[in-house]
């Protein structure tokens, strides 16, 4: 279940007004309007200002919601072949926030993310498959030093204010669920649910 609209980070709210682009079908349309010579793998880097990760976990009958800043995103997108796409995202877990201070400290503390010893959360893709208007990205996520496979739902958007057909500045959204006990991040399990739903929004700009 996604966070309530009033609880979503700014990037999520602005996303609703962004123009959706597809990784599979829509990328083809994008590339049709771009120069043919550019239909090769393109490298993108993060624009931190509009990028964040929303997360949500059950807390009794309520939810703990918050954000984790994206500290690095490195993407290679091949608009002609999903198989050539690569996604790498690093989150600044030590700067994670929550909707109340107790939860933020518990999240960063040694019983959950243990950010003093593991300040980053890392995702590295291993394969990309088409799915409807978007894609599924298989990869490995590393949380508190434990790496597990994960599949994220992906969608690609053109950033607001960019010209139709432009591929210079995009926004990628990655959604998935992790079971925190698989990463030994199972502290406060009597209070907080095991499933953590994550929603990564990353503004990216084509490299140089």
């Amino acid at each position, binding site marked *: 279940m996604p966070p309530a609209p009033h609880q979503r980070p700014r990037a999520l709210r602005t996303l609703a007004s962004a123009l959706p682009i597809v990784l599979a079908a829509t990328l083809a349309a994008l590339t049709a309007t771009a120069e043919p010579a550019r239909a090769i793998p393109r490298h993108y880097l993060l624009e931190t200002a509009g990028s964040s990760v929303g997360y949500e976990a059950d*807390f*009794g*009958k*309520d939810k703990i919601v918050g954000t984790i800043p994206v500290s690095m995103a490195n993407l290679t997108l091949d608009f002609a072949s999903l198989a050539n796409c690569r996604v790498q995202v690093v989150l600044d877990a030590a700067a994670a926030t929550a*909707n*109340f*201070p*107790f939860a933020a*400290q*518990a999240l*960063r*503390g*040694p*019983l959950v993310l*243990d950010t*003093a010893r593991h300040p980053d959360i890392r995702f590295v893709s291993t394969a990309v498959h088409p799915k409807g208007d978007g894609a599924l990205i298989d990869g490995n996520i590393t949380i508190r030093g434990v790496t597990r496979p994960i599949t994220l739902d992906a969608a690609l958007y053109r950033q607001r204010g960019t010209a139709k057909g432009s591929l210079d500045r995009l926004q990628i959204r990655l959604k998935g669920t992790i079971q925190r006990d698989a990463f030994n991040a199972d*502290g406060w399990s009597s*209070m*907080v649910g095991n499933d953590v739903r994550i929603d990564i929004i990353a503004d990216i700009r084509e490299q140089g």
Partner: protein
Amino acid sequence: MPLRNGPREFGAISRAIHWLMAVGILGTSVLGIVILRLTPSLSNIWLYGLHKTIGIVLLAAVLLRLLWHWASPTPAPLDSHGAGRARLARRAHWVLYALMIAIPLIGWAGSAATGIDVIVFGRWTLPPLVPASATAAKGLMALHHWLALAMLGLVAVHVAGALSRRDGTLRRMILGRPSPENPNPTSR
């Protein structure tokens, strides 16, 4: 009503601290048990802060109490049950004092070990007593829990002992005055 303790009676300050701490200890113990069984939500998360605040106030109160008893020594126990029981009662009291100091300190340290601040009255953040550590957090919180249960058991024995005595000990702790039937405290 004298504030200071006398050779045969408890002064108002000792009695006030005793009864306020009794209410606080029972209250925060019940609260501790309740929040362990509670389904957490944003509407009751403040209870955790309340538990910590009462615990820190009780820690301050027991230190103040010891200081006050140093400045104004308490009267000796009434001599009605023999030396053996008096010695047992004295030891039980010292264990109670040790627990009243240890339990909030261990709770404070346990909270610090989880990485969560102890904030008193929602305003003052206490410094962490130990660095954040999963092992320490689990051990300290378990110790806090079991020592609190042990203290509740000892408090029950303490209450039973006070109620079973017919020498006016309870009356002296309530009213301060020595029992007319047994006005002579034992020697320490």
